């Protein structure tokens, strides 16, 4: 994964997308092969150094304690602060900019436990933005967001990539991948995968096979759209069940 690339990681539920992302982040050891960050094995970097390079947005937003939104975003500055140092005005400015980028300006003093699921996701994204890492791993960043906020988030990620960041995101919508990603990684399960530029990898055939659901591709101007074909799904599902 290089700077400037937006990778879409697609696959069925349970195929191992989050597990793969946790392995790429270095939290789990790979069973074979190794993960290299900046040319060195990822576990050779100190945790702090790794946090300067690689940011990881978890799939769920668990808030065990009440906190203000600004406090939650400021944690993104943790890898840059010395042990006894306090957050500076510059750190606070970075946090406020991050909140602005996700459309949550004015939410600074709100209690995080009172926000909706989508708002909490956006706070999580803001915290990651505050970390200002060159590489970002995003586990379902669009979960619970309405269509406007989904598009705003995707535009934000595409913009980050243009400015030189490298992004990998887990998404369930092949249309998002087609519109905003530069590369795609498809996990078919049972060890099979396909990786490459999005235009090569994301085809109707591959997407149909990926989700075990017949999908039609429609061209609308320069854009490609994938539609699930309901009538054919019943026939395919029966066949698939009988083959198992």
């Amino acid at each position, binding site marked *: 994964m290089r700077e400037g690339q937006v990778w879409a990681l697609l696959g069925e539920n349970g195929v191992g997308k989050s597990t793969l992302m946790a392995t790429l982040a270095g939290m789990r050891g790979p069973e074979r092969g190794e993960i290299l960050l900046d040319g060195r094995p990822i576990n050779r970097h100190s*945790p*702090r150094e790794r*946090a300067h390079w690689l*940011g990881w*947005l978890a799939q769920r937003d668990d808030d065990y304690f009440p906190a*203000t939104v*600004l*406090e939650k975003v400021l944690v993104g500055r943790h890898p840059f602060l010395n042990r006894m140092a306090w957050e500076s005005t510059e750190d606070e400015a970075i946090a406020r900019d991050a909140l602005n980028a996700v459309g949550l300006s004015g939410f600074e003093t709100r*209690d995080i436990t009172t926000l909706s699921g989508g708002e909490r996701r956006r706070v999580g994204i803001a915290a990651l933005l505050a970390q200002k890492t060159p590489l970002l791993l995003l586990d379902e960043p669009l979960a619970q967001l309405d269509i406007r906020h989904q598009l705003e988030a995707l535009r934000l990620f595409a913009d980050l990539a243009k400015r030189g960041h490298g992004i990998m995101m887990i998404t369930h919508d092949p249309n998002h991948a087609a519109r905003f990603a530069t590369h795609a990684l498809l996990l078919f399960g049972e060890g099979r995968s396909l990786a490459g530029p999005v235009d090569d990898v994301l085809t109707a055939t591959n997407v149909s096979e990926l989700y075990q659901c017949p999908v039609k591709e429609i061209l609308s101007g320069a854009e490609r759209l994938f539609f699930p074909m309901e009538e054919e799904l019943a026939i395919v599902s029966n066949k698939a069940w009988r083959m198992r």
Partner: protein
Amino acid sequence: MKTAISHTGLVMRVQRVTFNRTVSVLAMLILLALIIATLSVCFGSSNIPLSQLFNDSDDTRVVHDVLLNLRLPRTAAAFAVGGLLGLAGALMQVLLRNPLAEPYILGTSGGASVGAMLTMLLSGPGAWVSLGAGAGSLSAIAIVFTLARGDGSWTQARLLLTGVAVAAFCSAITSLLLSLAPDGILRGMVFWLLGDLSSADWRQASVVLFIAVCGLIPFARDLNVFALGPQQAYGLGVNVPLVRAVIYVMIAITASVAVTTAGMIGFVGLLVPHSLRLILGNDQRLLLPATALGGGTLLMFADLLSRTLIAPQQLPVGVITAVFGAPFFLILLNRRAR
């Protein structure tokens, strides 16, 4: 939707914790602690007016004796034990990521009471009791930790349940030992279990409290990040297994020393961090020293009550904290539920 802030009506929670705010809040808490400490020294089964503290005549020499050899050490012990309990409670709430956790969950109190009861039965009340309590406490913690080994977010549940099981077992053994005790020792054993500051050694507890607070302050922001959850803490560059081990060891030491010094005093370890968090927020850079000060102040006050409520007789301080602590806790819970 109402915010938690509007419940408490206290504006402090809305603000971010900065260095200046930390210093001013801690200064207020230190002042409060000094006031309560002075009251604790002046009042008791006989009341000593402030003016007599500084005179030097024949009558006041007796008074000074009471002060220096009885009241001051006892007040210092109350502060140190309360501080340790508050600190242990705050750390436990971070470790288990649960604002309702308290330091006795991991088997500390169960092990300590078994150790203390056994020592009392075998050699009578005395210095060995503290050692027995300490040994029992640390053994119980080691057992719980070994049994609950693992990694991942659901270790918290396993830790909790193992602690509950070990505590239940220790409770059964304690009851057995109480039933076997001869009448002469029985009263002493029961008083130990209820929490008693009359023979507490303030020196050990104070030193441990001081070292614990100094040792934890540099880790305070790591604790903030740890409390967010293992994945997020990992992503932000925190060495999660190391921090978890440090927290565990600190809880073991602070809770064990508190229990061996003054027996089982309940509710301080739960109430103080929980209530202070509602007022001050969860930033450990402020909350940790604040709970140490708050716990110490609360226990000094409870000890004062235990000596004055039915003076000249003294109540065990653990009774005061439970009798007033439980209803207060229920009130807090009720306010949160709204």
